[in-house]
């Protein structure tokens, strides 16, 4: 509620407006929607969410779950190491994840460039040239475990006798997967997708630490934009406006999510 009210004022952290915020009506909203930076910020947010949540975490998580489920029946040794590694990347605090990737991407001595140079190719300025790709990869590294866990759980609930029946009918592994596994994962997939979309949408610390939204505003997502306007430019009123827009977008996702999950129940 405070955010809603403040978003209609010109409250600031310093100066005259800090002591006596005035009611400015819809001015902040008008400013936001005519702000050329805001279009870029929205675009960046969409690229980040599609790249890291939908393409990255979702596809990789699904793939990992299928591989691990398959491996569990055959008892592969490396599978449990891989499983623990994915979980480890997920539970460690975000600042750590961000710091680890800063070191990985380091231009002069980072593991990635040292590796590249050992292979005889030129070092790449990861955070300068491909900042969006860099933050997306780091976020995939951090967040894939969630989707993986959800799909692993879902795969366990598929009764094995439908596979037996399919095998008797002469369906090959690919057919069995396409006709039986994927359809039974569909309802939970929708929920997992929305849920990671929401959490990715709010990603802040990772991007802030890796690139601080830069270079320029090439990785500035809406969460960083709200933070920078409110705390770096000291425009709390304007920052609140951005926060309100974020909350509304997020509420839309959430309502969709509840609809789908209730339809399942």
């Amino acid at each position: 509620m405070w955010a809603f009210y403040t978003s209609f004022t010109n409250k600031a952290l310093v100066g005259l407006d800090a002591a006596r915020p005035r009611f400015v009506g819809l001015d902040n909203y008008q400013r936001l929607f005519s702000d050329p930076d805001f279009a870029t910020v929205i675009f960046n947010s969409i690229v980040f969410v599609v790249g890291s949540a939908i393409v990255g975490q979702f596809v990789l998580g699904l793939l990992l779950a299928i591989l691990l489920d398959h491996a569990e029946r055959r008892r592969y040794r490396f599978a449990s190491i891989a499983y623990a590694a994915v979980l480890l990347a997920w539970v460690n605090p975000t600042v750590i994840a961000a710091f680890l990737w800063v070191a990985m991407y380091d231009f002069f001595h980072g593991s990635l460039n040292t590796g590249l140079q050992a292979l005889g190719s030129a070092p790449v300025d990861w955070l300068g040239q491909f900042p969006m790709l860099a933050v997306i990869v780091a976020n995939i590294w951090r967040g894939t475990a969630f989707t993986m866990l959800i799909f692993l759980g879902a795969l366990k609930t598929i009764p094995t006798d439908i596979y037996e029946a399919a095998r008797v009918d002469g369906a090959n592994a690919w057919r069995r997967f396409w006709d039986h596994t994927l359809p039974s994962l569909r309802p939970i997939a929708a929920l997992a997708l929305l849920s990671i979309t929401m959490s990715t949408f709010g990603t802040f610390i990772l991007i802030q630490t890796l690139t601080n939204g830069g270079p320029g505003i090439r990785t500035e997502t809406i969460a960083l934009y709200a933070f920078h306007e409110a705390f770096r430019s000291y425009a709390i009123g304007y920052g609140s406006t951005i926060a309100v827009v974020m909350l509304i977008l997020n509420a839309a996702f959430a309502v969709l999510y509840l609809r789908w999950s209730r339809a399942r129940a």
Partner: protein
Amino acid sequence: MHAAFLAIAAFFLAPFVWLFTAAFDAHAQAYIRWPEQLTLDNFVQIFDRYAFATALQNSVFVAVSTMVLTVCVVSLAGYSLSRIELRHKAWITYAILLLQTMPLSATMVPIYGLARELGLRNSYLGLILIHSAIELPFLVWLMKGFFDSVPRHLEEAAWLDGRTKFRALFEIVLPVARPGIAVAAGLSFLSAWAEVLMVLILVDQQGMKTIPLAFYETFRTAGGYTEVQYGLVAAMGVLYVLPVMAVFFATRRLMVRGLMSSTRGL
């Protein structure tokens, strides 16, 4: 198949390998290598020069208090939601869940403003309250699920024996719901331990810093903005991440099951 799993493990483990080797390296670099000179000097330095002990103390205090407060609140709230008949109960439970989906980064500006007006900046109380609030909706939901699975006739029998509702809850129901409480305690501790955004905006006094803030600042400012003191920061990182690994892997099965049951209940 083996190659696939090896590649996955390498991708997810490589950063950690670097973290643990760099922390013990006298001249840590940003790339993975076996330390030329094994040393504990990095750890000594962060305690001597970067007041890591204070940060550690603050973090433990805030995280443990958060855990205690959260467990009390979510047990009672979860039990009430599970047992008491209310009008529009479905709506209330969904509203609680809706709160959980709000990203922290969207609420940080209003939280900052409110905390400033209520005088909760640079205070333990403020940090504990806000850290408790972060996971509260999800954990209420989780505990409701656990209490739903405790049969009602257990406590009804206790009431017939003449126990009050509270005594029945504490003596009969809570012991049965112990796995749920363990999951709630573990998750709230981990979340309070790892949370950095709220600390970043609510704390600016040296003595109040928790580990994530000390870590963030050492990382960004020690050695200037251009050169990161990798060895020191890695040492802090190791001390910061070890409790997380310990708590998580000690209770891994329970945690994963708790998380799964909650997503299934959605």
